[in-house]
């Protein structure tokens, strides 16, 4: 009695919900339904080097520096010259990035003829809850910019 129907599965959106409810810090979790197929959405979302500086006003550049398979390393430079090294897990439908102070994640699954897309982002250090208004602002701006991305329009 171990057939697949006996095992409840968690898609990437559900996994992101679990993380949003359990990772400590000041995090902002958003979900949107996009009218584009998941392959097209993920092609944009996973192009981190090009898209992160476009979506996040605080990021000037994001460059992969190493790693292999789905475990990668990256170096980010902020608008004011601040720098951070990131650990990245990237695979179809799932991306999780963390530096010493910041965490970011994205997930996508097909829903109807479109895609359910979710983001999670914020600060992970103690006392970061004071920055909640900022994470809210950044999270809302980023997901709105993503939803309006030219590559996702018909």
């Amino acid at each position, binding site marked *: 009695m171990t057939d697949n129907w006996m095992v409840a599965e968690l898609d990437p959106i559900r996994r992101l919900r679990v*993380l949003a409810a*359990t990772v400590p810090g000041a995090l902002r979790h958003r979900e949107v339904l996009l009218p584009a197929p998941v392959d097209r959405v993920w092609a944009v979302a996973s192009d981190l080097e090009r898209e992160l500086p476009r979506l996040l006003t605080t990021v000037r550049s994001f460059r992969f520096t190493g790693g292999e398979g789905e475990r990668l390393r990256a170096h980010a430079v902020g608008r004011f010259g601040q720098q951070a090294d990131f650990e990245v897990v990237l695979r179809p439908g799932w991306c999780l990035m963390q530096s010493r102070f910041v965490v970011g994640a994205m997930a996508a699954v097909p829903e109807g003829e479109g895609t359910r897309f979710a983001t999670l982002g914020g600060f992970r250090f103690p006392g970061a809850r004071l920055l909640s208004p900022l994470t809210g602002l950044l999270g809302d701006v980023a997901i709105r910019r993503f939803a309006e991305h030219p590559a996702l329009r018909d």
Partner: protein
Amino acid sequence: MTTAVQQEAGPTPGIDPALVRDAQRGDPLALAELMELLTPYVGRICGPIARQDGPDAAQDALIVILRGLRQLREPAALLGWARTIAVREAVRVAQRAGRTVTAPLDELRAAGDPQLATDVEDALARLTPEHRAVLVLRDLEGVDETTTSSVLAVPLGTVRSRLARARRSFRKVWES
């Protein structure tokens, strides 16, 4: 991970105690990795108990498990602890959904028939969440009666009588 826990937990990959400790400190990558290691185990418990609501139950169970991780003093106890939470969340979600199946079973399939699994699922669906939980723990996971009593928070005698009734109900539906 101790051998005892691995045997008790069944074919679940061993979980590095250092990973559990990193997750207890709130490291997001460790929490995500631990979630992925626990998901098949939690899903195997929540699926048969909560059925179509299994993904909801598994999601809720993982939130409770990872949120409460700091209370866990011994990483080797993780799987047993996760199992207790998964069973309780699955029963809770199934009770909340309150779905019952009343349509009669189709003709019984022969073993090996691809429809067999569907028939088993139909038969399970006719049981209460509490009966599905005791069947999952004893007959699928092979958990002993004492542990089942602890997981379900009911006396040993209740486990035995509930298991007997659950098996009788399953057999009755199966053979009808």
